[in-house]
């Protein structure tokens, strides 16, 4: 390695450190004995995990957020895949409109959307309801899902569907038996994306929080603003474990699917 690439590597690893340090440094604070955040943490306790799991409000928020995120993932993948399919297999003028609308939720600041939705949902009684959150989160997650699915869909040769139809499949059967299995990994990862976006959405939740139910990020925001305790790092620890589990699971799944396509398979 010459000096130039040494320098480049050093710079890049410094940047990576910048990215990682704040994410990592917060984790040990979850075990701090103090009821505020310090680094390095003082003492050791699992109290804050108990505080999280033992508190019905945190648990309620967790369940509420999980429900919203799951539904958001479902709605975006189904709606997004339908739209993508239509687009990739036949665009036209409607496609341009689609793309214009798709980019909207990315560039329009979430604060603007949040305020607009707050007003609208108050009028329609959707404020604070699961449906309201799912609508709002679906809008902001949609571009990511569409992109992920479209990337897979464009790489599926349309001739495969033609082939299936020439074998006697209807278009829907061809989609179900040929296209869908091929884009499934991307559909799933799009759904996962949507889940995370919804699960971690603080701005819209900030405005939409209803009287009875709050999402986890909104609870966390309150905690940070009102009374920042090591419950926040404890949640971070839990989320990190969860995401590691998901990532490892996904990797295993991928390896398994590689094996089934490479090795003998019966239907």
């Amino acid at each position, binding site marked *: 390695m010459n000096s130039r690439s040494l320098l480049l590597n050093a710079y890049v690893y410094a940047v990576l450190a910048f990215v990682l340090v704040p994410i990592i440094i917060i984790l040990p604070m979850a075990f701090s004995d103090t009821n505020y955040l310090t680094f390095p943490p003082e003492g050791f306790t699992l109290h804050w995990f108990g505080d999280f799991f033992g508190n019905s409000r945190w648990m309620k928020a967790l369940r509420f957020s999980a429900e919203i995120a799951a539904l958001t993932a479902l709605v975006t993948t189904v709606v997004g895949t339908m739209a993508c399919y239509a687009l990739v297999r036949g665009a036209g003028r409607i496609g341009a409109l689609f793309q214009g609308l798709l980019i909207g939720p990315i560039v329009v600041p979430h604060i603007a959307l949040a305020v607009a939705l707050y007003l609208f949902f108050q009028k329609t009684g959707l404020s604070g309801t699961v449906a309201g959150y799912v609508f709002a989160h679906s809008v902001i997650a949609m571009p990511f899902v569409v992109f992920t699915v479209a990337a897979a869909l464009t790489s599926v040769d349309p001739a495969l569907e*033609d*082939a299936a139809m020439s*074998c*006697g499949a209807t278009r829907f059967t061809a989609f179900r038996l040929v296209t869908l299995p091929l884009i499934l990994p991307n559909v799933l990862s799009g759904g996962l994306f949507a889940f995370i976006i919804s699960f971690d959405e603080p701005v819209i939740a900030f405005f939409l929080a209803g009287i009875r139910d709050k999402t986890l990020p909104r609870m966390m925001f309150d905690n940070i603003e009102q009374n920042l305790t090591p419950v926040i790092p404890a949640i971070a620890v839990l989320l990190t474990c969860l995401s590691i589990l998901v990532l490892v699971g996904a990797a295993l799944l991928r390896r398994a699917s590689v094996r089934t396509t490479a090795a003998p*398979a019966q239907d």
Partner: protein
Amino acid sequence: MLDGRTADGAAISLRGLEKRFGSLAAVDDVSIDIESGEFLALLGPSGSGKSTILMSLAGFERPTKGQILIDGVDCTPLPPHKRNIGMVFQHYTLFPHLSVVENVAFPLKMRKVAKSERIRRAEAALKTVRLEGYGQRAPKQLSGGQQQRVALARAIVYNPRVLLMDEPLSALDKNLREEMQLEIKRLHSELGITVVFVTHDQGEALTMADRVAILKEGRLQQISPARELYERPANLFAASFIGEMNQIPVDYDGGVVRLGGGQAIALPQEALVQPVPPGKAVLAVRPERVRLVDATSADALPVRLRDVVYAGAGTLVIGDLADGTEIRARIPSADSADLRAGTTLHMGFPPGAMLLYGGGAA
């Protein structure tokens, strides 16, 4: 042999087929009658409408005019999955998430054949394309040629009476292509199925088909057996599209042609494929029929040698006639050892090698 095969191939009739995309007529009033069990090649330059005809046959495109009859039944409005036609595409269209045998069994699954029966018939079809034992592999574990053979097996497993192929070999390299050509011919004669085969490779069309249909800009130019097409092309387009062809502008007086350099050549009657009015015409001769002759020979035309290109089996000799018209001859390399660019030699056209067409050069 495949199971339950009893029927012969279907007869197909295209009647006044037209397909427009906006103002463009991709297929323009094409009528072809294909006999039961015939092997027909559709040949033409890119964009000439070959695929569009095939897609109309398969049901993927709805013609804007005309009819498609299969065994006398009008199936113009039927969707693809109801036509019971086998089809092989240009690119590898095996389903990558299914094993080879599952791929081949797919059409049977669509036809609700029981599973064990499906597997049995799929294995039989794989045997027909000489791929027994490959059933459990994933498609991408096969070579390109093997993949196309699986596609072939999938297209014939349900005993369709018609098999459509859209440039099935164009993605293969030369050796594999030749091997597959023989394979497909063998299958065709074994199964007695009607085959419509699209290609833009003239050698392929000539080698494989009973008859070749030549298309240009959506219109049918000629439909004949290979030998007739090569030896007596109907017009200059067909003549120059198939194989190489010297085109020499001449004046025709009804019996004798006069070259730019002044030489006159008497034409035998069979040189006219279609009647040619006296006046400007084009004399067409295939390079491999051109002979090197002595200067003293009656039909000797002096040619100034421009280039001698050694190409293994044959040597391409390029030169100019007296009036500057380029002329090419392909001679066995064994005879070409002492040819040098810049010298002058003499060429002659055997009477049976000449064809005459009216109008200017193509």
